């Protein structure tokens, strides 16, 4: 379960409302998706990198948690490099693959973009506690409580599903059916897990109902979900980075509207 566990700590970032941690990178992503060029993403990445060290993660955790982004970015770039829209001089051409001036610059832009969008998203999100996020979604964003709390309770079952999966695996070996095709076994095991999870979810739903969940009463919230100036600062930082990146791009003539 360690992959799901939020990183805890005492620095300011850990106390910020999760909605702000969600909003800032979303804002940045929205802006960076308007244009595809290497300048905007580089500027954003440069500005972000100053902030990563204040994100309350520590170096080791930073690299560990962001590793998927570092792997995904060059692969995304490689795909664009080989299959992206060709223009200018072509360096390598084989069936559908075509490496050209155009695809090289698109590939660089894509790689940087995945990093510039992915890294802040991951860095901010690993410090989010699911319960705090649910509080924020219900109290700040005002999503329906039924939906938010249902999701939150279901998330807790994930750990039980992992245990169930392991037991199902052992039970199949014990029943003498673990030698046959992997794919078939996986399918039957997945179905069994599905049945078990529905039963668990039904019991959980009854337990929640027994505690008044879904009653026609105005619900209160035991935990506050404050959204104050600190949160606005984080959102503004996101907006500022986006604005600077786009301005530099437009001024330097690299603006390349994505739909264009």
């Amino acid at each position, binding site marked *: 379960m360690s992959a799901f566990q939020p990183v805890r700590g005492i620095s300011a970032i850990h106390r910020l409302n999760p909605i702000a941690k969600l909003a800032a990178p979303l804002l940045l992503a929205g802006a960076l998706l308007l244009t595809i060029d290497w300048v905007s993403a580089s500027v954003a990445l440069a500005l972000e990198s100053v902030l990563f060290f204040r994100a309350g993660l520590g170096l080791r955790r930073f690299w560990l948690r962001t590793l998927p982004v570092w792997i995904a970015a060059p692969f995304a770039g490689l795909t664009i490099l080989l299959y992206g829209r060709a223009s200018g001089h072509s360096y390598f051409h084989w069936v559908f693959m075509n490496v050209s001036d155009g695809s090289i610059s698109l590939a660089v832009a894509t790689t940087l973009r995945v990093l510039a969008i992915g890294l802040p998203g991951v860095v901010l999100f690993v410090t989010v506690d699911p319960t705090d996020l649910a509080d924020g979604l219900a109290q700040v964003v005002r999503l329906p409580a039924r939906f938010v709390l249902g999701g939150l309770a279901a998330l807790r079952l994930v750990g039980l599903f992992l245990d169930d999966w392991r037991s199902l695996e052992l039970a199949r070996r014990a029943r003498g059916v673990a030698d046959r095709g992997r794919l078939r076994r996986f399918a039957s095991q997945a179905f069994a897990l599905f049945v078990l999870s529905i039963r668990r979810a039904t019991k959980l739903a009854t337990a929640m109902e027994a505690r008044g969940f879904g009653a026609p009463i105005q619900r209160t919230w*035991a935990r506050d979900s404050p959204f104050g100036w600190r949160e606005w600062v984080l959102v503004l930082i996101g907006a500022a980075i986006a604005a600077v990146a786009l301005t530099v791009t437009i001024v330097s003539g690299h603006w390349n509207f994505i739909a264009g």
Partner: protein
Amino acid sequence: MSSSIPAAGVTARGWGWRHSGRKAWAVSDLDVRIEPGERVLLLGASGAGKSTLVHALAGVLGGEEEGEQRGELLIDGRRPEDSRGRVGLVMQDPDSQVILARVGDDVAFGCENLGVPREEIWTRVAESLDAVGLRVPLDHPTEQLSGGQKQRLALAGVLAMHPGLLLLDEPTANLDPDGVVEVREAVARVLDRTHATLVVIEHRVEVWRSLVDRVIILAPGGGVLADGAPDAVLGTQGASLAASGVWVPEFPPAAPIRVTAPTSERLLATEGLSVARSGSGVLQSGIDLSLAVGEALAVTGPNGAGKSTLGLTLAGLLAPAAGRVAAAPRLANGIGSHPIRWKSRELFTRIGTVFQDPEHQFLASTVRDELAIGPRALRLVQPEIDARVDELLTRLRLETLAAANPFTLSGGEKRRLSVATVLATRPRVMVLDEPTFGQDSRTWQELVALLAGLLDEGCSIVAVTHDAELVSALATTTLRFDSRTEVTA
């Protein structure tokens, strides 16, 4: 905890409930009055509708699409659905009642739903956790609690809603002996503070006997079979209750009689064995044991000590963390001596495993097919498969259920089926993980008699168990693991 919350009274007038799609009424013609502050133990044979009644009182039976209602069931003169917060329900399965990730939040959940103001919620949370004796920090992760602690957490969550009626549906059935005591003491303390009305279902009478002042026995055909003071009711009805599966201390189930004595012909042994779940730390080490024909080894000790892990390791399902598990030639029968290296198809004719949760090991959509899976994997011919299946159906009283889906069986039937699936391939060694958890006394007696018969026929058994009666009825050797410290703050 303030005792100013009035206790709730219950009135049933000709009440009945039929689950949709069923012919028979789960409960019918119930006329009963429970006064505020009474403490009632609700008994009855399995299928008498105890859980249905308690769920109805909790208002969680569902609407018209879930079933049909007859007569009246009222709490302080109001329908249960309109009495939210007046009634608190604690159920059997500890894992399915934890709602949130942190202890404090979980207790606060019910209060939030009832619209209690924030400041008052946290006062109630503190009071409730204190009342159930759960002394952990509010941000303690709920997934790290033991079974007994989880049940006390559920009790605290209910208590924080300030109910006038406390409903407990077999709250200790899945717990080890320490957990049972923990929960009973917590309930006693809560009742002393709140004076709430109590209705508890439990088929182990002695757990609650000293705490209740009234026993109501539901009749399987509808209505009430007996009702009155515990000693009076148990005195007149004890024998018939025991026959219907209720654990009555004066009428314990019969212990089996072994015909043949254990031999010294060894089947399985360990040398310097250490056990661990894959990817986690070693739980126990330096285990040297051996298992001979006709022997029953009981592995006991508190939760988390590594009992189940040892069971799975002996069963050839988990690799030893160190040391080895060696099958004697008599068991290995021509293949290597390391069970973990055997193929699945080689393993299940030699060592059979009955899992704690029978649902984990069901593979087919009917009871008959479930039993045929093993013989079929052995590539037996159809007549031989049918013969084995029919024999097991008869022996374990499952004939009438041959076409039923295994998941729809009752707890006792599921347990019998899971044992039968293992017997179908006739392994010499059987590993059983908590085989008697949640079983009524009748199923218990049948199961223990069956196991004794297998031992007499030359099998040997490893049973991971908390059940002292099982140990004294069957075990020829006992291995006790010492405690690992429970999480408290």
